[in-house]
């Protein structure tokens, strides 16, 4: 069971490494969006500190969205998705592998760069730590829920815009708890409660989303 998951992760990571431009552009999108906010609202440190959690999280949602359409589209176009669906394993496990690989190349880099961007917003060391932790904990849920949208919109006209319409409302709890964790740390309330809820969301969506995505993929492959 684990073998198929690791096989898919290995394959997708290798493909991502051969196409690093994709990873880098999503990352730069994140950096640019976050850096635009101080230019838009002004450089007062108090205001920026207050805005930081929300801005960083919204940018993280958008950056994740950016890479979602390609999650299944490339495999669909060249026929490998059919082969994946015909592998002698439940398709949900294959999708689990793809979701993990997607997180490794999209969510993980965001978490690693987030503290640097947090410094731009004058966040304290504590807040930076919680921010990194929250993005680490929350982005797998984004990849998982996003996979459902990517599978539902596979091969449709204007799939990218439609995908954001379907997925962004479902991202709201992650946004609330993710940004809330940082916010609570900044205001001195402690973000543990938020972080544990975020972890619960991630576990639930990683358990549930791959199977829903697999069902959607089967519909798309008919």
């Amino acid at each position, binding site marked *: 069971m684990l073998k198929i998951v690791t096989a898919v992760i290995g394959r997708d990571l290798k493909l991502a490494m051969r196409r690093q431009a994709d990873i880098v552009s999503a990352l730069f999108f994140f950096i640019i969006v976050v850096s635009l906010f101080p230019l838009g609202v002004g450089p007062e440190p108090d205001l920026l500190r207050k805005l930081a959690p929300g801005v960083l999280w919204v940018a993280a949602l958008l950056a994740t969205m950016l890479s979602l359409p390609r999650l299944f589209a490339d495999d669909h176009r060249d026929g490998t998705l059919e082969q994946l669906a015909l592998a002698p394993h439940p398709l949900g496990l294959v999708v689990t592998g793809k979701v993990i690989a997607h997180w490794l190349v999209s969510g993980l880099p965001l978490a690693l760069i987030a503290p640097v961007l947090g410094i731009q917003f004058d966040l304290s060391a504590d807040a930076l730590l919680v921010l990194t932790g929250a993005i680490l904990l929350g982005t797998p849920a984004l990849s998982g829920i996003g996979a459902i949208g990517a599978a539902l919109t596979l091969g449709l006209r204007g799939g990218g815009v439609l995908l954001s319409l379907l997925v962004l*409302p479902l991202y709201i*709890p992650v946004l609330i708890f993710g940004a809330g964790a940082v916010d609570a740390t900044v205001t001195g309330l402690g973000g543990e409660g938020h972080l544990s809820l975020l972890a619960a969301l991630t576990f639930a969506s990683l358990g*549930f989303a791959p199977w829903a995505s697999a069902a959607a993929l089967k519909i798309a492959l008919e």
Partner: protein
Amino acid sequence: MKDRFNLYRYASPATFYPLAGRMIPYFAALSVLFGLAGLYLGMLVAPTDFQQGEGYRIIFIHVPASWMSMFIYLVMAFWAAIGLAFNTRLSGMMAQALAPTGALMAFLSLWTGALWGKPMWGAWWVWDARLTSELILLFLYIGFMALTAAIDDPKRADKAGGLLLLVGVVNVPIIYFSVKWWNTLHQGSSVNLTKSSMAQTMLWGMLLMALCFWMYSIAVALLRARTIMLERERHTDWVKAELAGVER
């Protein structure tokens, strides 16, 4: 085996189409009756609120619309589950027929909420937990309609839309509680439209209006379902016979 057969008989568009056609006028008439009675109670009989003045009377539209918007989403999810489990053609059509009405109810609820908010809170929009959840519900409706509209093959549209509805219905409580939590943390406005002590007549008015909206939703959903059926089954014999009858 016989039960199964009967179930499939009513689930078949050819039998459902005339049945729906016969039912629509009754639901429409009931909707008008309940609406008149509800508006009479709400606008004329119910006492003026000592805090909110006459402005509160918008709850006779607002609250039933909010109820219906949530209820219709559940009904759509129910149809979706049936459709995915038993592969019935009717389920997808019903879900699609209900969606615009659900979206309309969510929109009505938001609009009346804003109209009520201006005199009460002094702002058209307040990030109140209920209003925010209603807005997200509207997004979910729009997402469903956009997805089914983007898929050309009706069978795939039904299945994909159904799956989205099931995913949505699992997420709705999570979204609702997270928004509520977010709202209490940020100490947003917690003035409640319905919490103020409610007179008996107000409750009756609201219930009648809810019944009115309910009957209306059934009537228009059936009407829309009939149109979808004709469109999808235009090559079948029963639709051809039906259309020939109209021309004559």
